[in-house]
């Protein structure tokens, strides 16, 4: 591959890593369109590369959340059972789907993600003194006890996150966070942290199938993974200096533009 393309892939990775760390996303929303629109990969090839990079990005966030004991590791393990089943199903059916169908699914994911970011939907969880789990908010100093509600519904819903993740190369936080927060009654910060922990495992279960089946383009995946790793380190330092959540709305506009570009590419206009 041309050195220019290799440099572009490294830069795509760095940008995805920074955005991932700043906005708490896996980076797939940025990597997949960049690799298809700029480098010219098919959506399926880009999804395979993206999943490898998401593993590298998610670990940075996960380590931070685990060290601060925000992520609920037990809840993550439970929900990952159905998510991994979904991810395996997604990776398997991707072999039988036309690339344009995967692209359409990805565009839908982009639009829903952008809409959620603009609306900033979240459910406030009240302290439950009989709750089995406790979360200490370092910023407010407040302890919140909570219990898990609607576990069977949340468990089933997470399988959808797995299918979407391995089909399209995104982390699946789009489904996991609202499921944990709104359906299962988990505080938003815990849901975000637990999702970060889960994203790595979900990405692993999709990526390993692509990798063992020889569907990962090695040099592209290597440059992008190195880039996201560097980007995640830079992004995590930047996130301490300013609050990324206030920039989420601007990022969502970019996601909408990317969705339009993907539609134009699908129509053969780009």
């Amino acid at each position: 591959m041309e050195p220019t393309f290799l440099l572009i892939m490294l830069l795509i990775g760095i940008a995805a890593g920074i955005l991932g760390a700043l906005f708490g996303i896996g980076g797939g929303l940025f990597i997949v369109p960049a690799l298809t629109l700029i480098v010219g990969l098919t959506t399926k090839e880009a999804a395979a590369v993206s999943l490898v990079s998401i593993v590298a990005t998610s670990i940075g966030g996960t380590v931070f959340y685990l060290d601060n004991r925000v992520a609920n590791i037990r809840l993550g393990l439970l929900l990952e059972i159905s998510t991994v089943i979904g991810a395996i199903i997604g990776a398997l059916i991707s072999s039988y789907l036309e690339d344009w169908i995967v692209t359409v699914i990805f565009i839908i994911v982009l639009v829903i993600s952008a809409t959620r970011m603009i609306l900033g939907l979240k459910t406030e969880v009240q302290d439950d003194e009989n709750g089995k789990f406790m979360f200490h908010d370092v910023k407010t100093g407040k302890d919140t006890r909570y219990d898990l509600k609607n576990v069977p519904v949340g468990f089933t819903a997470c399988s959808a996150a797995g299918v979407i993740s391995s089909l399209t190369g995104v982390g699946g936080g789009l489904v996991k966070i609202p499921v944990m927060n709104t359906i299962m009654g988990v505080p938003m910060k815990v849901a975000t942290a637990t999702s970060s922990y889960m994203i790595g495992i979900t990405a692993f279960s999709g990526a390993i199938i692509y990798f063992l089946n020889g569907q990962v383009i090695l040099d592209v995946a290597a440059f992008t993974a190195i880039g996201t790793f560097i980007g995640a380190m830079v992004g995590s330092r930047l996130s301490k200096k300013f609050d990324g959540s206030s920039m989420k709305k601007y990022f969502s506009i970019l996601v909408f533009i990317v969705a339009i570009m993907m539609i134009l590419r699908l129509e053969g206009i780009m």
Partner: protein
Amino acid sequence: MNAEHNTSMTLKISVYIGIAAVVIGLIVYLLDMGDAFLKAGLFIVIVSPFIGVIVTTVSLYLERDMKWVCVALILIAISVIGMFVK
């Protein structure tokens, strides 16, 4: 040491080793000396979260948190099955 700390340390060490191997592998690959290192590096990066789950399971076992050990073992079993699915 609790499950969270052990998992965090494992993820950190595993991904650092993986990325280092990817960098070395990429140099070897670009010098037309084969892709074995590159494949090994990417494999280590990809399996890092899975190694994390194994360490979590052992830590939960040491904490005698058997309910969650069972949950983790089911997840490991499904993940292993997934690796062999073509």
